[in-house]
């Protein structure tokens, strides 16, 4: 029983991180019908910016809670700015172009950010300080839960709930949803679609930066190629939940984390990806638009 609960905690922790990153994919796709392949790299860039804040200004001393908070704030702002710049440079000029052109541009942006990280921070594995968070652990029904796991799970839940409320219960959120349904109609209704797109490129990468920094703090290491791996997982989480659907990305992320934990824990780590993606195929066969994906109306 303890093992089972432990696997749930393991799954929820990574699932929360996947979900935070998946939100960036799904929001951009929802509004622009574009897969932002550079998103995973933006998240890891967030981890590196946070790392520089934590190690650069600490001067070897004990990085306190204030510094940790500052690292998150700086990282979120930096990555949101990077997201907006990315949209201006790599996606806006191609908005009217063929969709394939935008995908190629996204892949190019991904490689550019990845190699940019390598040039600035170097190719080796970077290690986060170990004393950022208290090493407290709790024992619940035979499972061991650490402070950081609780923090990641709680923070992702709160952030996802806040985003859900923002999109569904504010005027600007309504504008985002309207632009997602039909950009031209939204424009006719007086919605500034460019502002909506910019906001999506602030919120998505901002949440991604938090996810990236969580990865760094949880695993205490970061290297420049990490963005691709995590980006791929989060992208799959977004598809699993139904891309373009915000609660879907949250559900997809958490489910992917749990699938992975149970496959590795009860079958074999060698098979964890095969099992996880096998399940993904089965789900997509049954529900082609993902678990919570919109049902595409067919014109008869």
């Amino acid at each position, binding site marked *: 029983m303890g*093992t089972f609960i*432990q696997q749930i905690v393991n799954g929820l922790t*990574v699932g929360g991180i996947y979900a935070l990153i998946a939100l960036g994919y799904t929001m951009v796709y929802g509004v622009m019908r574009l897969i932002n392949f550079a998103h995973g790299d933006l998240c890891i860039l967030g981890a590196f910016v946070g790392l520089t804040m934590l190690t650069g200004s600490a001067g070897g001393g004990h990085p306190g809670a204030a510094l940790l908070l500052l690292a998150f704030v700086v990282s979120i702002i930096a990555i949101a700015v990077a997201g907006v710049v990315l949209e201006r440079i790599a996606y806006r000029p191609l908005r009217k172009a063929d969709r394939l052109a935008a995908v190629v541009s996204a892949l190019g942006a991904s490689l550019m950010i990845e190699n940019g990280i390598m040039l600035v921070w170097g190719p*080796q*594995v970077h290690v986060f300080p170990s004393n950022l968070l208290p090493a407290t652990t709790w024992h619940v029904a035979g499972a*061991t839960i650490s402070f950081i796991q609780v923090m990641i799970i709680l923070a992702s839940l709160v952030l996802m709930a806040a985003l859900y409320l923002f999109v569904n219960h504010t005027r600007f959120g309504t504008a985002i949803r309207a632009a997602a349904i039909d950009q031209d109609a939204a424009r006719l209704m007086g919605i500034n679609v460019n502002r909506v797109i910019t906001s999506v490129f602030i919120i998505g990468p901002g949440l991604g930066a938090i996810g990236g920094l969580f990865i760094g703090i949880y695993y205490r*290491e970061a290297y420049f190629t990490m963005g691709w791996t995590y980006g791929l997982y989060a992208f799959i989480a977004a598809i699993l939940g139904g891309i373009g659907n915000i609660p879907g990305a949250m559900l997809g992320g958490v489910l992917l984390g749990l699938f992975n934990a149970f496959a*590795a*824990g*009860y079958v074999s780590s060698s098979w964890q990806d095969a099992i996880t993606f096998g399940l993904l195929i089965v789900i997509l066969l049954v529900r082609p638009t993902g678990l919570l994906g919109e049902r595409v109306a067919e014109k008869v």
Partner: protein
Amino acid sequence: MLRTSTIGLGVSVALLAASGAAHAAPPIKIGVQAPITGTYADEGQGIARAVKLLAAQQNAKGGLLGRKIEVITCDDQGEAAQAAICARQLVNDHVVAVIGSYTSGAALAAEPIYARADVIQTSDGTSNELLKHGYKTWFGNAAPNSAEAKFTAHYLVDVQHYKKIAVLTDHSSFATGLAEAVVADVKAAHGTIVDKSFINAGSQNFSPVLTKLKALQPDALYFSGYYSDGGLIRAQMTQLGMKATFVGGDANQNVAFAKIAGAAAAGSIIINVPAPADLPYPVAKQFVADYKTKYGALPPSVFTLTNADGMRAVMQAIAATKSVKPAALETYLHGMKSFQGLTGTFAWNAKGERTGSPFVAFEVQPDGSYKILYPTPTAG
């Protein structure tokens, strides 16, 4: 990313002016194939730095056979596909010998290319796969898996008397080979293996598989993979409240292991030949000091030194045979009775396997340094 850089940095301008200008003889080219970028970047950079240091030192003494040594580096990123590209590039550059690579997988992909071109390859790769074809160009410079597995089993079963041993490995050809050998030798020593599981290297999330192993309550967890994963496994064991002693194979001996594992690192056991700073031989002390003076840091692991031994042996072979002909060098290297290496005296058997390596089990200290536990170090 095809980056082949010709590095003449080791050969300082002053030296060139002093002796280089007088000689018209072309330089002797030595290749370095190593992961300069990627997960194992610090190991790869260590190998490249060591070879460049040795070349610069030799050139300062007038080079070899009156010719300068030129080092050509190729970054294989620790990837098999890139390793094959590197091998072709270095062969096209007409190198006499290649030092590296760090991982068995990358060495394995390059091995047949060097063998066909008759270029000597000396790598710390120890996977049994590397010996399968019996290429005469292959010279493993680290102790083979079989010897390490025997020592590991002896330490786990006869010295520490662990009752239940869990084994964890990644999917690399080196780590799976070592894990299989350890499992076989532990069973031969009448020890109990409670489980053998796999991780996906670089996937970071090892908690699920560790949770499974924790339920089996092993006394020791033996991990045969690399330090970047080993450090994380150690940290996640503590996070899960797992009490088993972490025992790591030789690829866990890297300064980054303790950095990644953080506070959890202390008390971990690593089995390998002694770390660079603990090597008792005067040549080794001199080399480590020179390395530190030049690069401002200690070598990242002992594999920097085993590859340096490969380079030193090749240089000695060239000097002794007064030639750079592959056949003469290979015969000389295979026939060496005992070579005073930085990592102890050794020789190569007919398969190109290193013989003669003193293994030790050492404990990681809270400050990240190592303390040899077994065999009990003798004074002096």
